[in-house]
């Protein structure tokens, strides 16, 4: 019996040690620099608040954090969409002015491999920029660095919250350089095929409420688009 207990305690210790080693693995670092940082093309940056309560609408299955907003929005309860979120938000340009509306669909990806430090989500942005046009941004996002550096510390904290500075490139594909694929729709973006990257900057997170202070930025390369001012 005592050998069985020793084996059991050993296995638990082994699992915990593996988890700690995995969690603190220094080789799974967050991408800090955008793959588009060195592009010669014209680039637009669209920022948005990643706090659902500061957006226009956010919904999920109703059991997850953060809670849907507004309160009476329909929840995605059915099995096929229970791992999906819908986020509608205003988009702001570099000077902070309102630039457009974005609708983001995001679903957990079956290609998620935690062993390799990949907590993946497939997401699609449907963007409308008045005076410019519409486009689709299709991307794979890796949330593992965000989970590791923000969500888990918040969960382990006695106050169930996290405050600090996190910045990371969330986009990890599907393009070869780890960029999102952009398909232009109407207006100036008609026929556009380009790349984009989404980044996240977090300063506060509550394990109970979700993001408290968090902003996202969509950086989109516009190789052929001419400014409307010209």
């Amino acid at each position, binding site marked *: 019996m005592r*050998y069985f207990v020793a084996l059991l305690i050993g296995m638990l210790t082994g699992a915990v040690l593996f988890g700690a080693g995995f969690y603190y693995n220094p080789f799974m670092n967050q991408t800090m620099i955008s793959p588009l940082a060195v592009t010669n093309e014209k680039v637009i940056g669209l920022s948005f608040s990643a706090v659902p309560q500061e957006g*226009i609408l956010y919904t999920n299955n109703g059991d997850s954090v953060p809670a849907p907003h507004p309160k009476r929005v329909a929840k995605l309860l059915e099995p*096929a969409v229970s791992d999906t979120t819908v986020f509608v938000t205003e988009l702001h340009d570099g000077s902070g002015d309102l630039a457009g*509306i974005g609708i983001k669909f995001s679903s957990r990806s*079956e290609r*998620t491999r935690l062993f390799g430090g990949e907590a993946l989500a497939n997401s699609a942005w449907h963007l409308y920029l*008045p005076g410019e046009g519409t486009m689709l941004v299709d991307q794979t996002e890796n949330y593992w660095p965000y989970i590791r550096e923000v969500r888990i510390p918040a969960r382990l904290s006695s106050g169930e919250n996290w405050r600090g500075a996190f910045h990371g490139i969330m986009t990890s594909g599907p393009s070869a350089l780890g960029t999102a694929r952009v398909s232009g729709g109407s207006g100036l973006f008609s026929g556009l095929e380009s790349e984009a990257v989404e980044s996240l900057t977090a300063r506060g997170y509550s394990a109970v409420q979700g993001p408290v202070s968090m902003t996202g930025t969509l950086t989109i390369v516009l190789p052929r688009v001419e400014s409307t001012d010209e």
Partner: protein
Amino acid sequence: MAQVAGITWVSCGEPLTARRVGLCKPGLCARSQIARQMMSRPSNLTKLHYQSRRIDRQQTHHRVNRLFKTFIFGIILGALGAGALMYFAPAVNLHRERSLISVQPNGGSMERFQINLPRDRILVGLAGVEDSIPAGLDWPGEDFLGDMQAEAFIVRNENNAVVGVASRVASSTEETGAFIEWVVHFPARGTMYVQMELTPAEDGVRDGVLRAGTQDFLPLTGRIREQFVSEVDDGDVQGRIVLEATLAGPLGDEE
């Protein structure tokens, strides 16, 4: 027979450091022999006492050693097990509804989706309208978005099972050109980006083209038809949007 510490030891087939004293026959094991010697040669009592203590320590040490080895083995087993579990067990296993696809005579396939109104509405955002959906929606002003209307829906297959979500964005006053667009997102399959014609046909059906797709829809091209059905005999359903996707893969695919 052996001479240790000036004492004659009678062999019982087990060394002094016998691992399992309890398995020796009574009176023949090392401990019993020590007891016998103690009785027969009192002058060596102290030595014999220490010998006995040493044996006890060795046996205890050995027992602890085995426990420790078991513990270490457990650690390795636990770490390997956790690693194997993390590597092989799927972290995400999305629910899939059976696709209801019919093959078209000229190639490709047709799949029909539907949205039951008002039940499947997630969002109706239109500037200047008081009763936006959901209640409490803070939609940007008309001066910024004009008559742009954004809607979001839950999407069902022909069997009325939920399979995805969708957005429909339309504007007739956009200065760079009016548009009507759909983005239909199926969590387990991918996303369709559809551009619709501005004017519907006489029968009310609006045609559109698949502008881009992701995942399963990435290599596909085709047309999507949108139709609003107002007369629906299905409980609280007041109307239904039907999306009919006729899609085909690229010609000349290599097997």
